[in-house]
């Protein structure tokens, strides 16, 4: 021990050994930074499919919502297909770790007692058809609600680019 200590010290003070020592640090540092990029992330990164699901579901939802001035029974199949796609998007989003914000936004959309998409579809089913003024206002609101989901996925994309 008493011999090794000074030897190591002398070797490190040597210019060549110092350079070797610092160069040896390069790989662990790069590894550490890569590790941190993964381990330190607080939110699920951008996912192209999640983004596409949110935009295509919005288009489909707005198209179905526009028809709510007509009899629900005529469009029951379209409503079921829309709900299936919303649930697919939700399940896909929920599968990613650290993705609670987007997952909760989908849950709000799917809440039948709320004022978002599923609440609207429930009202339509109950009433048979809805007034033009209400449908127009609700369509605008549901569009904004979808934009919150799409906006966050889009922000992730902007950062990833």
């Amino acid at each position, binding site marked *: 021990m008493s011999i090794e200590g000074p030897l190591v010290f002398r070797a490190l003070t040597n210019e060549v050994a110092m350079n070797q020592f610092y160069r040896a640090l390069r790989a662990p540092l790069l590894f550490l930074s890569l590790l941190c990029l993964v381990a*330190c992330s607080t939110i699920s990164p951008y996912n192209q499919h999640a983004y596409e699901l949110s935009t295509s579901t919005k288009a489909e939802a707005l198209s179905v919502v526009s028809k709510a001035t007509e009899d629900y029974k005529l469009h029951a199949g379209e409503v079921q297909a829309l709900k299936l796609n919303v649930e697919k998007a939700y399940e896909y989003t929920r599968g990613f770790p650290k993705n609670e914000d987007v997952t909760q936004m989908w849950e709000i959309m799917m809440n039948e007692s709320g004022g978002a998409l599923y609440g609207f579809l429930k009202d339509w089913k109950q009433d048979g058809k809805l007034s033009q003024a209400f449908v127009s206002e609700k369509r605008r609101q549901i569009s904004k609600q979808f934009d*919150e989901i799409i906006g966050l996925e889009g922000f992730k994309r902007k950062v990833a680019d």
Partner: protein
Amino acid sequence: MSKFDEFSNEWLTAVESFSLKSFKDFKEAAISDARDFFTSSQEDLRRWADKFGAGELTQRELKSLVRGEQDLLEMHALHQSGVVKVRTDMFVNGIIDLTVNTIIKVFLV
């Protein structure tokens, strides 16, 4: 001045400048976003009140729209929470890059 002192000085200056810029950008974006959201929400509420007054919307429909606005507000808060997380990741990754680059510049080049 030792290599480590040189690294410390350079790193601290870079971190300070990077942090100031990051927080300034974030603060400005957050204020502008909140202002836009509440202006838009206020316009919606005013329009619905007018339509309700004119008999175009029923009380039940007005209630559904107000409930929807609450949902929208909640979704906006979740959106903002996500944006903060993305920005936090950007900041942390920026600091990591900056630290590694400063070490390489001072010690290895």
